């Protein structure tokens, strides 16, 4: 394990930096992860050897770019166990994927009086698009609330998802608390009423094996940058029959069949939903990142991250000055820990930790309604990746202990 970790960390140049004369401890992985040199090198090679506009050219570089782009699509398909590569649409991030679903799918599905169900845990990106649809269509947005543990109870699901529900859009793993939601239960329940289920996989796809078929979901979204790939590339997965019904979201080059002055017909899936020049290098980066993850093995990644999380949870539970949010049971959560230090605003905590080289996030984590629900203005969040270590957690905890003193409290 020791050696394995040393090897792994060598793959990530950013991890061996000094920040403020301290070794960087990067615990902001839920925001974005660092990139292994395999991904960085793949991009460099792409620029040096390939780089052309795919799908449109008869020349060598264009053919290569097309191959790379479509290989990336197939790699994503396998990774999430989708049936067909037509079900994989490349977008710029999870947020765009959700907006496509809101405006090109839900706007045609939801009618006045219908209900859309989300949870109070949602990231703004999985909330604002539904507020828009609800407003424009005269539908109602309903929230699944949490029990004390941060979990969603069966009774909550059963009472909120009803025959009025047309759509459930829910996060798999909360970026703010780390909680993992009971997706299979929700899909089974939603499908009873014929409602469609969208999974926000931004936090789960990077950290657990995903089988869209087993989960029973209709759509899923995620972002490359949270899973070792570059920013600027995201994915929208949808069941082929459903994507087929959808009208295009962006209109322009690449997504057309015939174009007349006053009329145009559109290409088949997946191209119908990919307008303009696509981010080929982003797709290549995502493919390379997935290959990297597969090489380590998702099960190993999950085991390492679960181990780090329970180690950190235990240490933090032992600190009197720390208030923890989210499930106490590390089985119900991913590698995200939200907490506060008594009497200290999370921004001060984050700045002080930063001075020790420890990068954590402070704020509402794009989940203002959740913060309001928990009656806290903000939290401090430490989120781990498989490349983090227990030694880093030890140092982080030691640094945390100094925070109150910096702010003039006895301890």
């Amino acid at each position: 394990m020791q050696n394995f970790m040393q090897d792994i960390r060598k793959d990530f140049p950013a991890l061996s930096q000094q920040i403020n004369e301290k070794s960087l401890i990067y615990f902001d992985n839920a925001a974005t992860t660092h990139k292994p040199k395999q991904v960085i090198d793949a991009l460099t090679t792409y620029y040096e050897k390939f780089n052309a506009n795919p799908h449109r050219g008869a020349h060598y570089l264009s053919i290569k770019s097309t191959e790379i782009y479509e290989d990336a699509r197939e790699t994503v398909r396998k990774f999430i166990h989708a049936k067909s590569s037509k079900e994989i649409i490349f977008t710029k991030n999870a947020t765009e994927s959700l907006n496509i679903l809101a405006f090109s799918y839900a706007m045609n599905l939801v009618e006045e009086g219908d209900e859309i169900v989300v949870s109070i845990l949602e990231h703004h990106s999985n909330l604002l698009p539904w507020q828009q649809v609800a407003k424009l269509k005269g539908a109602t947005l309903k929230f699944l609330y949490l029990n004390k543990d941060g979990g969603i109870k069966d009774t909550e699901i059963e009472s909120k998802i009803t025959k009025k529900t047309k759509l459930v859009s829910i996060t798999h793993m909360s970026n703010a608390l780390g909680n993992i939601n009971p997706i299979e239960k929700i899909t089974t329940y939603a499908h009873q009423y014929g409602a469609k289920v969208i999974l926000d996989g931004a936090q789960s796809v990077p950290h657990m094996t995903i089988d869209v078929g087993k989960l029973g979901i209709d759509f899923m979204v995620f972002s490359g940058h949270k899973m070792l790939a570059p920013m600027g590339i995201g994915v929208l997965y949808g069941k082929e029959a459903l994507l087929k019904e959808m009208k295009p979201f962006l209109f322009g080059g690449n997504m057309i069949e015939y174009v007349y002055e006053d009329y145009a017909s559109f290409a088949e899936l997946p191209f119908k939903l990919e307008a303009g020049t696509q981010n080929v290098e982003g797709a290549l980066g995502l493919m390379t990142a997935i290959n990297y993850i597969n090489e380590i093995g998702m099960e190993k990644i999950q085991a390492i991250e679960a181990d780090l999380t329970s180690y950190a949870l235990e240490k933090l539970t032992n600190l009197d000055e720390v208030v923890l949010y989210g499930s106490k049971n590390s089985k119900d959560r991913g590698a995200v820990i939200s907490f506060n230090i008594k009497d200290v605003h999370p921004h001060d905590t984050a700045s002080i930790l930063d001075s020790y080289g420890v990068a954590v996030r402070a704020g509402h984590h794009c989940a203002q309604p959740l913060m309001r629900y928990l009656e806290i203005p903000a939290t401090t969040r430490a989120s781990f990746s498989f490349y983090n270590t227990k030694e880093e957690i030890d140092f982080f905890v030691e640094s945390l202990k100094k925070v109150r003193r910096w702010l003039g409290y006895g301890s």
Partner: protein
Amino acid sequence: MDLNSIYSELILEHSQNSHNYRRIDAPTLSHKGHNPSCGDEITLQLKLESEIIKDAAFSGVGCAISKASTSILIDLITDKTKQEALNLVDTFIGMIKREVTNEEELEILEDALAFQNISNLPARVKCAVLAWHTLKKSLE
């Protein structure tokens, strides 16, 4: 980055149990300033008597830096004219942006000079200026 210069005695004093953290009865002006990206939300209350700020106070939530900055601001503007207060705000913002660097000019900021180095902590600049922007908006 020198944390000592940020979390100094003076700033800590003002951020905890500040004598300005209270409510004024019947304020003539009450203005809410917020920093959505952090969740900071501060309400500034003023009692003006013919252009003079007779009393000022604040309430709300914020980090140590935003609370200290608010409290120090309040000490500074109490018993000053509106015009003097606005001038202090401009000087303070100028200092933070490193546009005003002349020491003599900065002297009028007194305790607020403690924030001179906040730009070394770019993420916290917003916290330090929140109350000052709020005052400016409320007076204008």
